């Protein structure tokens, strides 16, 4: 990139299933104020805004326009990007571009979803055009059910491994005051009592629909060093999209296609000289819509060899105290305001690098972290963040 960019402020709301006490713009405003406070900046300092959200879930048009006052963007430049689940990452990417292009010194990414406005699963089902695929796509959940079946068949993972992923997420979420589902699950039995949503995905295997917002403030190198004593550097990012598959929407369940995760990871790691991820990177926040997907993603992001993702969870490698912590925030299975979910991954990774994650700060000293997202028909975005340049 032409100019270097750092994260100088992050803010998020408490994530929950329903927010009656605020309207949509007010909820987003909470995260804006939190991020401004974190960066010790005021509304005046923000030069441009990038908004990220999937408006179909709230049944809105131009949702950014409705919250201009509440996010402090009156009289400011900005625009809204959209897309699949990766939209938040792509918003952060574009906000970085605006800075490294030299157009602005300080930009803000505003991301949210307020799922109490409408049924997100129905919204995702509407990603199928009825004229081509009526009655075949049932939310994201049926697609991840197919993905889970493939993973089970190919890797030999068992239901107890999915349970381990779920229990890890819950232990982490219970240490993160902002997380949505903080269930206090005790063990395998709690997991097995959870009913099926779409076989073989249980209610507890899958991400919730959360109301929440996340805001990240980005600054140019010169300004970043003045604004925050611990700026987190956005060293690189990578995106790989893919067309809808003939067979499945989220990843190819047939195992015959290359995954966008493998492609994005290979490109990002090559550019940055990463050959051994678990050694050279200290932790990861990944977008895992289901327990099974988390294990599969370990493999696609090269945290381990193919078909060995479940062994990482079995050995406790990815726990908060583990050798390579993954999703110490509780991840997406615990909190999922979709438009904000990728931005939360980046914000949480930044907090870990700063050492400001509080109770869910990982044991390993985090100098380098990756934050990923997933969306559309298996789209991937990855960010590489570092403590020092």
């Amino acid at each position: 990139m032409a100019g270097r960019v750092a994260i100088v402020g992050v803010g998020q709301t408490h994530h929950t299933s329903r927010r009656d006490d605020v309207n949509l713009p007010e909820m987003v405003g909470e995260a804006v104020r939190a991020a401004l406070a974190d960066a010790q900046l005021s509304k005046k300092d923000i030069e441009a805004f990038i908004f990220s959200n999937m408006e179909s879930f709230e049944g809105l048009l131009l949702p950014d326009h409705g919250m201009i006052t509440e996010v402090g963007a009156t009289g400011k430049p900005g625009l809204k990007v959209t897309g699949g689940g990766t939209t938040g990452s792509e918003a952060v990417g574009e906000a970085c571009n605006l800075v490294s292009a030299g157009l602005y010194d300080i930009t803000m990414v505003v991301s949210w979803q307020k799922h109490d406005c409408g049924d997100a699963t129905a919204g995702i089902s509407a990603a199928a055009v009825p004229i081509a695929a009526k009655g075949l796509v049932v939310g994201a959940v049926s697609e991840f059910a197919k993905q889970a079946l493939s993973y089970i068949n190919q890797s030999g993972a068992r239901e107890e491994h999915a349970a381990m992923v779920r229990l890890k997420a819950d232990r982490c979420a219970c240490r993160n005051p902002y997380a949505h589902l903080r269930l206090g699950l005790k063990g395998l039995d709690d997991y097995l009592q959870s009913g099926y949503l779409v076989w073989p995905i249980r209610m507890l295997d899958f991400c919730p629909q959360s109301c929440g917002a996340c805001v990240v403030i980005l600054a140019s190198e010169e300004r970043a060093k003045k604004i925050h004593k611990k700026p987190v550097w956005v060293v690189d990012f990578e995106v790989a999209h893919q067309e809808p598959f003939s067979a499945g929407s989220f990843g190819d369940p047939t195992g015959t296609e290359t995954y966008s995760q493998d492609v994005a990871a290979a490109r990002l790691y090559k550019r940055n000289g990463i050959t051994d991820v678990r050694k050279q990177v200290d932790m990861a926040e990944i977008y895992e819509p289901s327990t099974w997907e988390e294990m599969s993603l370990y493999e696609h992001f090269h945290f381990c060899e193919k078909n060995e993702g479940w062994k990482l969870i079995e050995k406790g490698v990815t726990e908060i105290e583990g050798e390579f912590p993954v999703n110490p925030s509780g991840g997406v299975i615990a909190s999922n305001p979709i438009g904000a979910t990728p931005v939360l991954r980046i914000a949480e990774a930044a907090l870990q690098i700063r050492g400001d994650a509080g109770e869910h700060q990982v044991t390993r000293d985090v100098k380098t972290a990756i934050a990923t997202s997933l969306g559309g028909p298996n789209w991937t975005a990855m960010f590489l963040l570092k403590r020092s340049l």
Partner: protein
Amino acid sequence: MAQVTEKLEGMDVWVYHGQIYIPNTYSAGAVGSRFLIELRDNKKIMGTRCPTCNLVYVPARSVCKDCFGELSEWVEVSQKGTLLTYTVAYQSNPIQPVSTPIVYGIVQLDGADTGFVHMLGEVDPEKLKVGTKVKAVFKSKKERQGSILDIKYFKPLG
């Protein structure tokens, strides 16, 4: 509703007349709820004041557009005001609460610094002018539900 697939004449192209139907619900939040409840229960029109900019926002809002300050000072404003602009809309759509033509207007209530977007009633559009004095007409207590439509419309004074 009927969902029909129809072939275009003279070419192998089909058009599917269908729908997307997902109900949506929007929370008014604490400030918005209090504003709507005052309409419903007390027939009062409430605003919030920004002490920094000395602006009274009506309907009540939680944030000042200029200084980004959070607004917590409630004020009741007059039910009478001045018409800032209006239109007579002839095109129908399924959301409109009454049948067309509908007269929409923006009214600056006495004591408010912003306009209030609503409808006008009991009016001869020919005689309407920017600057016309108007006052709020509420629905009956039974009809009021805690919505912007609890005000039936604004009508010209006198």
